[in-house]
């Protein structure tokens, strides 16, 4: 008998049948539904014979546009997962007054941990990285990012992390420690299950993906710009992309190191953050927030960039105070590294330390405020068209100011002494993350969707989605501010305080309204796909845009531009349009040349496959599988390094055929403008 058990332990590590939560219907049913959905989609793909299309055109694609779309798709799917967690939490808190509600603590605690982890790492991050991937090379007027294959590796590693988080739903458990897994609670003695391991390994894997994306985009912006695209001619979105990715490069290694220390504690009995042998919990707090605070700017800066593009386009004006905006962006980038201590004013640091970090945190509000005012003056004297992206932008400005107010309030140490960790704080960061990042992501989605797919989204459903989300946000989170003022702390599975009850019910109603908003968004997508012919964008410039992404067709050809555009000022495409109109018929029959593009490669997918195996094996202590995964990942890279042809040529004739269509449409657009 013992011998048999050893074999099992060698083969399967800690994994056995008890890992499947057969007694918990909710995760089991959810897992089953997801599994059926995935199998259904796969079956459909195989039966319809789309498998080779999927493999050749998407999974192995190294085209930055395709990868960007896949990032956004991943984020959208995970948004539904994280959103279901949110709904469950709001219902629990609405019913758990003087009772246990319907979720026992061990389940509820997993849900809020998963909700935070998923929303930050697998919704917000992939959404903004996806949009940056999709748009930045187009705005810079180049054919691809700096490292196309690495880009694919980055995406698939992110997907691998997301997959592991979802596997935890049905095999084992997720962390029950909150989204930052503070020790000593997350140490082995207080969290002996595999939850924290799922958390840490999925973040390690996706963290490498994020770092790769960050390096890639920094290099792209700094080294790959088309002729004449000086730094101070770059669209604002490129600037915020640069700032955000510089932050990724500087901050994500801190997360990697911190989680590595936690894992060493858990796996090998180290003493970084343990209670015993001199470990130091406060060090974890400092390290994790040294990453965590820049992280929120990693998310929100690209959103600022999106709003800059949207506000200027739909106001029909260049961005007001462009240089000021650049300065503000870079100021935020730098200062965001100097304020991490405001996340734990209540740890007993001295008054000088608290005050200095409090003031430093407020200083970030200055460049942020400048941005708001510059958007305001961009609208001033404009001719504003309220298409859906612009609605999101105006909604953002109003919402974000309130979030900014409460944020500065929390930066005042004596106020934080009574608001720290309260529902007020929860309301604050949802106010800036939903009102800032998510609204920005949705604005970018609506704004650039026609560029990515060649047809616009239905405006009526888009408006409905905006209004439900906007109102739903306020109905959900204003009550949370109030219960925070009534002393309610976060992460309570149940409570006995009567005064909190009504507000929790209002918040639950609010989340229902938010859900309607999300449903509207889905309906919008479905309706638009069905009516895509009517919504077709043939000109490549559906919004009368200003930057170079609108200078090519929608969707852009694989090489983006037949010729690298020559940029002569800010708002490059706007000036091109103006010039084209003045000096009508430009050179007819330009001389097309062969274009070399990077070949597709399964490296990213295969590498992430091995990374998933390795992560799963590490979580369950299946050591032989860890070695297999590691060797597999290394072998994948060697195979990639060994290949002899990494580029293919698109002949000039083919380029000509593709580009002439675009030129025709564009001339039509310009002449239409003349008539108009």
């Amino acid at each position, binding site marked *: 008998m013992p011998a048999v058990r050893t074999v099992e332990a060698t083969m399967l590590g800690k994994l056995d049948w008890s890992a499947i939560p057969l007694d918990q219907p909710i995760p089991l049913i959810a897992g089953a539904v997801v599994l059926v959905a995935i199998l259904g989609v796969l079956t459909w793909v195989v039966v319809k014979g789309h498998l080779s299309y999927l493999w050749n055109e998407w999974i192995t694609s190294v085209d930055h546009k395709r990868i960007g779309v896949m990032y956004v798709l991943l984020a959208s799917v995970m948004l539904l997962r994280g959103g279901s967690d949110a709904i469950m939490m709001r219902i629990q808190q609405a019913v758990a007054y003087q009772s246990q509600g319907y979720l026992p603590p061990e389940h509820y605690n997993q849900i809020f941990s998963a909700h935070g982890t998923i929303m930050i790492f697998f919704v917000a991050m992939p959404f903004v990285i996806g949009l940056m991937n999709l748009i930045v090379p187009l705005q810079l007027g*180049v054919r691809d990012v*700096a*490292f196309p294959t690495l880009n694919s590796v980055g995406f698939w590693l992110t997907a691998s992390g997301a997959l592991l988080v979802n596997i935890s739903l049905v095999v084992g458990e997720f962390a029950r420690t909150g989204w930052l897994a503070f020790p000593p609670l997350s140490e082995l003695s207080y969290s002996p299950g595999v939850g924290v391991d799922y958390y840490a390994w999925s973040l390690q894997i996706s963290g490498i993906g994020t*770092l790769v994306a*960050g*390096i*890639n985009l*920094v*290099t792209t912006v*700094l*080294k*790959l*710009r*088309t*002729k*004449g*695209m*000086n730094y*101070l001619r770059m669209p604002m979105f490129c600037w915020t992309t640069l700032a955000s990715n510089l932050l990724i490069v*500087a901050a*994500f*290694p*801190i997360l*990697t*190191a*911190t989680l*590595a220390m936690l894992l*060493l504690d858990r796996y*090998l*009995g*180290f*003493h*970084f953050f343990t209670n015993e*042998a*001199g*470990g*130091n919990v406060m*060090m974890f707090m400092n*390290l994790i927030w040294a990453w965590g605070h820049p992280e929120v700017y990693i998310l929100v800066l690209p959103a600022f960039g999106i709003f800059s593009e949207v506000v200027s386009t739909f106001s*029909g004006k260049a961005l007001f105070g462009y*240089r000021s905006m650049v300065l503000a962006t870079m100021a935020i980038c730098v200062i965001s590294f100097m304020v991490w201590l405001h996340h734990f004013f209540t740890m007993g640091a001295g008054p000088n330390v608290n005050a200095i970090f409090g003031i430093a945190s407020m200083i970030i509000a200055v460049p942020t405020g400048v941005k708001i005012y510059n958007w305001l003056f961009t609208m001033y004297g404009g001719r504003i068209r309220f298409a859906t992206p612009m609605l999101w932008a105006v909604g953002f400005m109003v919402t974000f100011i309130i979030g900014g107010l409460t944020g500065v309030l929390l930066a005042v140490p004596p106020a934080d002494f009574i608001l720290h960790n309260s529902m007020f704080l929860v309301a604050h960061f949802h106010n800036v993350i939903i009102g800032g990042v998510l609204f920005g992501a949705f604005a970018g989605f609506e704004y650039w969707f026609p560029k990515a797919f060649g047809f616009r989204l239905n405006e009526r459903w888009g408006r409905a989605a905006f209004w439900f989300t906007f109102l739903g946000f306020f109905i959900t989170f204003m009550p949370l501010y109030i219960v925070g003022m009534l002393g309610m702390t976060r992460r309570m599975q149940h409570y006995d305080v009567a005064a909190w009850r009504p507000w929790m019910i209002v918040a639950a109603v609010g989340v229902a309204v938010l859900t309607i908003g999300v449903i509207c968004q889905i309906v919008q997508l479905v309706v638009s796909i069905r009516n895509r012919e009517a919504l077709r964008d043939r000109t490549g410039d559906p919004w*009368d845009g200003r930057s170079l992404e609108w200078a090519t067709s929608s969707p852009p050809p694989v090489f983006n531009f037949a010729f*690298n555009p020559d*940029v002569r*000022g*800010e708002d490059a495409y*706007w*000036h091109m*349009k*103006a*010039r084209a*109109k*003045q000096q009508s018929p430009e050179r007819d029959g330009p001389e097309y040349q062969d274009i070399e593009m990077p070949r597709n490669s399964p490296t990213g997918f295969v590498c992430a496959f091995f990374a998933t195996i390795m992560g799963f094996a590490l979580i369950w202590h299946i050591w032989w599988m860890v070695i297999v995964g590691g060797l597999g990942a290394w072998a994948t890279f060697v195979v990639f*390094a*060994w290949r*002899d042809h*990494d580029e293919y040529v698109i002949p000039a004739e083919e380029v000509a055929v593709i580009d002439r269509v675009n030129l025709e449409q564009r001339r039509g657009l*310009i002449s239409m*403008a003349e008539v*108009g």
Partner: protein
Amino acid sequence: MSITATAGHAHTDPHQIGVLIEHPGPAPKRIVTAYGFWIFLLSDIVMFSCFFAAHAVLAGQTAGGPRGSEIFEPSYVAIETVCLLLSSFTCGMASIAADVRNRLWFHVSMAITCALGLVFLVLEFREFADLIARGYGPSRSAFLTSFFSLVGCHGLHVSAGLLWLLTMMAQVFAKGFRADILRRMTCFALFWHALDIVWVAVFSVVYLLGSAP
């Protein structure tokens, strides 16, 4: 549409000040690759600095276990340092050999680099094994935790570097000095030199400062 209305502003760039040097366009691949790798190295150094910070915080937390001065053997570490510094030199030779497309010297220099790296790793491994055998493993105290992690993290980087080195040699052997292989060689050399710099910091902060009684 609104284009007509702005025709007058078409050429006025309101923020344009003075004469300006036009950006020449995308950089060549060689530059882009090395530049990207530099950024990766910076991020790697940030990661190391976290372990350095942890060491600074935990160095005094011996929990009744040994202090640095009781367990470090300076002569051992001196040999390790010499090996690594020499290997950086030979790695530089390999880069030059690659630049002048001399296969023989490339392989010889890389092989010496590899050997020196291996000696370094063996010495480090023996130091670790010895400490653990004496009961001074990383679980003994927070000080030893941070010591093993910081030095071990560097050691892992060296191991990964050796794997990369051997892969590079095999590639040059099989494919010769192709442009993409030369770009990779540049990155490898950067990586190897960076590990040297990190080691200098480890040597000074952990061993020299830590040996003070």
